[in-house]
Structure formats: C-alpha cells, structure tokens
C-alpha cells in the first residue's frame, strides 16, 4: 500500500514537472520570467516554509506544550506580513535583480554582493541538508531502506526536476505539493476530533489547557524570548523567499502573496498544534516529539491513511528542498561567478544547473551531520538573521547606504553567530541569535558613520 501511494505520488509529480517544461534561459531558471501570479506566489512561499519543522516539529511541540508554540509561531506570521508590507514591494521594484545578493550589490557595491552570495549559498546548503535528513527519515520509514540510500533518493528526485526546470518548475511543483498537504492535514485533524477523540470538544479543550499551562511553566522566559526572536528573524528573506518576491508579476502581487502567506502560517500552526493536543489523549505520553504525528496517524487513520500521510510528508520536505537548491544555485551563479566574468545566458544557465547538482550532493553528504531537525534549523536561523538582515533591510530603506557598513555588519554578524553557536555555546546566557543580531546592527551603525566621515558628511 505504502509503495503504491509513493509510486502514484511520484508519477503525478512527474506529470506536473513535464507540463511545467524545461527552463531555456537563465531568467526563466532564476526568476520564472518575473511572471508569477498571486496564487502561485502565495502557494509556493507557503510550501517553501512548511517544511518538516513546521509540520512534524509543531505537532510534537503541541503534544508537549499545547498552544504555547502557536503563540511563538505567530512571530513567524508577523514577520511574513511585515516583509510583505514593508520589504517585498521595495525589493521587487529593483530592476535586473535575480537574487537578494544582487539587490545588496545594487544598493552597496560588488564586494558586498559577493559576500552576501557566499553567505546565501552556504545557508541554502545548510538548510538543504536539514531537509535531506528529514526526507531520508520519512523514506526510511516507508521502505525500510538504509538511511543514506533514503537521503540519496529524496535528494536525487528533487535535484533532477530543479536542475532542468529551474524556479518555474520549483514553484509549480510547490503549488501541487501545497494543495496536497493543505487538504490532507486538516482532514486528518477533523477525523481525529470528530471520530477518534472520546469526549470531542470537552476533551480537546481540557487537554489544550493542561498542556499549555505545562508548557508555560517549563519554559524559562529567556528561552521564550530566544524562540520568538528566532521565529521572527530567522527565516526572514532567506534566498528562496527573496527569489519569489523578485519573480512576482507586480509589486502588489509580491506584497499580497507574503501577507497571505503570513496569515496562512498562523492558521497552519493552529492545525499542527491542535493535532498535537489531540494526540495527548490517543498516544502514550512518553512518545518522542518527532514521532507524535507518525504514531497518531498510524493509530487513527484507516489502513490507507498512513501511506497517504507519508506521501504528504514527502511533499512537505521536497517542496522546501527544491526551493533551497534552486535559490542556492541562482545565488552562486549571480552573486559569486557573475561579478567576475561577463557570462552569456547559456553559460549562466549551465552554471546554475551544475550548481544545483553540486549543492544537492553537499546537502546529501552533510545530512548525516545534522543533529536533529529543529536544532539544525535553529543553527541556520542563528547565522542567517544577523549576517544578512540588517544589511538587506536597511539598504532597501536608506537613500545612500554605505558599503563599509554592509561589509562590517555581514562579517561581524556571521562571526559572532558562529562563535557563540558552535565554539562557545555556553559562554553566554542570552540566545546567540540576539547577541549576533545586536552586534551586526552596531557594526552597521559604526561602518555607516566611519564611511560617511571618510567621504564627507554632505556627499
């Protein structure tokens, strides 16, 4: 049954890929010709952010701490809405921009673009390895294959359609996958509440109250602040989202797509956390967080339900992985190679394709080093937010942003994040993301002031 479900899913995906067709030019590979309509921008942004963390992870957190994590998840929704209202239209307005690094290059200078490109490619590879690991776990659950073969299969399927189709295929397959999981997951919740939960509403409400109170009492305030900061800043404008802003048909499509995706995320988190709350009355309390969703569905759904869920999880993971592979490849071509040489369109397209394969291989190999899904994601958030956000957002708003400010901010943000995340994790009490973000902001202000004084205050 599981095998049939997966085969049917892969066949449907192949059909969508074939219809979506091959990218023939770099602008098609990187920006889908800047012609994405609202529904596809919204669907693909939502499919890109709903990865294993926002599905399996949130159900597990709902199981342990009830609606506490829904409150934390709201920070993510706010971030998406703010990006839609304040940043996306300004970014979309820039001409001849393929990546966020390109935007930084236009606002500051070429060196800043290259540094932003290196950080973007590294982060895309890091995020991709977390997705590859999660995909391997799910496939291993279905076929019982060795873990490295499971990872290799997931990465190979995703890389194959991303390599040839580029962003357009990634967006269209994302919309297909979004449709699958946004219909099937809520149905699972409704089945659980109305047919499997004894006492229905009363049980649900009492479990929600008990779990949320337990979650609040067991989470220290400082840890709570760190989580809210990570959700508010960690995924802001990461390369796949920036590419979707730039690929939108108009500025208003980019704005509305992100605002809708933000609203959707708050509703989605509610569904996931509710599934976790429902699970409290159905599965044993000592169940591991990452296995709550899988065990719940095994118990409550009919015999065909479990393979269907596994297929949904595969789509959740692959839709995030394809976006990361494409964004990393485009950043490599546009921000790291293109500034050094005048590339023809064909050469850029070929480099983009090779980079997709290379990042996929790096992700598959390093997937074994990822500790667990949520920790892996938090590490990536901790580096991305301080390294890029101050530079990108302030640069879009200032009339004359200074290159020295950008270089200082990106370097200091990255170094402080790496130092306190990996080298001395226990040296500070506050979360590393907050310290690194604060340092990057200070470095930006210092760089701006020094550069302004150097070149004359009224220049």
């Amino acid at each position: 049954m599981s095998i049939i479900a997966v085969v049917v899913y892969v066949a449907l995906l192949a059909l969508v890929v074939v219809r979506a067709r091959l990218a023939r030019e770099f602008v098609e590979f990187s920006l889908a010709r800047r012609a994405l309509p609202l529904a596809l921008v919204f669907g693909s942004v939502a499919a890109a952010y709903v990865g294993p963390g926002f599905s399996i992870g949130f159900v597990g957190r709902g199981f342990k701490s009830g609606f506490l994590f829904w409150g934390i998840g709201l920070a993510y929704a706010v971030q998406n809405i703010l990006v839609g209202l304040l940043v996306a239209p300004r970014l979309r307005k820039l001409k001849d921009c393929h990546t966020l690094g390109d935007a930084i290059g236009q606002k500051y200078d070429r060196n800043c673009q290259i540094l932003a490109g290196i950080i973007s490619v590294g982060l895309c590879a890091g995020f991709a390895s977390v997705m590859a690991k999660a995909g391997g776990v799910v496939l291993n659950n279905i076929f019982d294959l060795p873990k490295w073969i499971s990872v290799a299969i997931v990465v190979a399927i995703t890389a194959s359609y991303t390599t040839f189709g580029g962003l357009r295929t990634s967006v269209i397959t994302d919309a297909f996958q979004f449709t699958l999981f946004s219909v099937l997951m809520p149905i699972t919740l409704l089945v659980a509440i109305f047919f499997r939960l004894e006492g229905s509403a009363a049980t649900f409400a009492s479990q929600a109250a008990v779990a949320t109170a337990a979650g609040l009492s067991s989470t220290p305030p400082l840890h709570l602040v760190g989580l809210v900061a990570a959700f508010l800043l960690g995924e802001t404008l990461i390369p796949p989202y920036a590419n979707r802003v730039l690929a939108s048909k108009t500025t208003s499509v980019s704005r509305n797509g992100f605002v809708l995706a933000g609203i959707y995320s708050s509703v989605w988190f509610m569904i996931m956390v509710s599934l976790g709350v429902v699970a409290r009355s159905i599965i044993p309390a000592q169940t591991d967080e990452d296995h709550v969703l899988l065990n719940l569905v095994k118990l409550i759904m009919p015999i065909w339900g479990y393979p269907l869920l596994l297929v949904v999880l595969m789509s959740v993971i692959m839709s995030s992985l394809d976006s990361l592979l494409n964004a990393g490849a485009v950043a490599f071509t546009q921000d790291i190679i293109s500034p050094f040489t005048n590339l023809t369109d064909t050469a850029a397209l070929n480099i983009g394709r090779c980079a997709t394969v290379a990042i996929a291989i790096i992700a598959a190999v390093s997937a074994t080093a990822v500790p667990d899904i949520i920790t892996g994601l938090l590490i990536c958030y901790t580096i991305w937010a301080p390294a890029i956000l101050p530079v990108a957002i302030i640069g879009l708003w200032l009339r004359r942003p200074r290159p020295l400010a950008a270089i200082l901010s990106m370097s200091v943000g990255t170094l402080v994040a790496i130092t306190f995340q990996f080298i001395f994790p226990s040296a500070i009490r506050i979360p590393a993301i907050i310290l690194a973000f604060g340092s990057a902001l200070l470095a930006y202000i210092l760089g701006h002031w020094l550069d302004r004084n150097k070149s004359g205050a009224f220049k």
Partner: protein
Amino acid sequence: MKVFLLIFVVLAALSVVAGGVWVAIALIGALSRPRVSDTYPVRKTTSLSNGVNTTATKP
C-alpha cells in the same frame, strides 16, 4: 468556551483546505494555459524571395 475553541479549530482547518483548493485551481490554470511558443511566434525572420517580401515564422 470549549465549543468556541472547537469551532475555532474547525474553521482554521476549513480555511487551510480552502487555501489548498484555491491554489489547486490556479495551478490547473497555469498548467493548462497554452504555451507561449504554441501561440506566438518567438522568432521572426524576414527574407526576400523572388522580389517579394515575406515573413517566415518559426515556432
């Protein structure tokens, strides 16, 4: 209170389903739209044959 919470969760579930259906309709529209190359000429070459100016269209 309990009933309100349940209604809230059910409405949330239905909104997510509605979002999925909306994107599915857009996806079907995007995939079934005629391809640019099927509808419009992508390259035009003008040639002079027998003194008559003709425009050949290559799909």
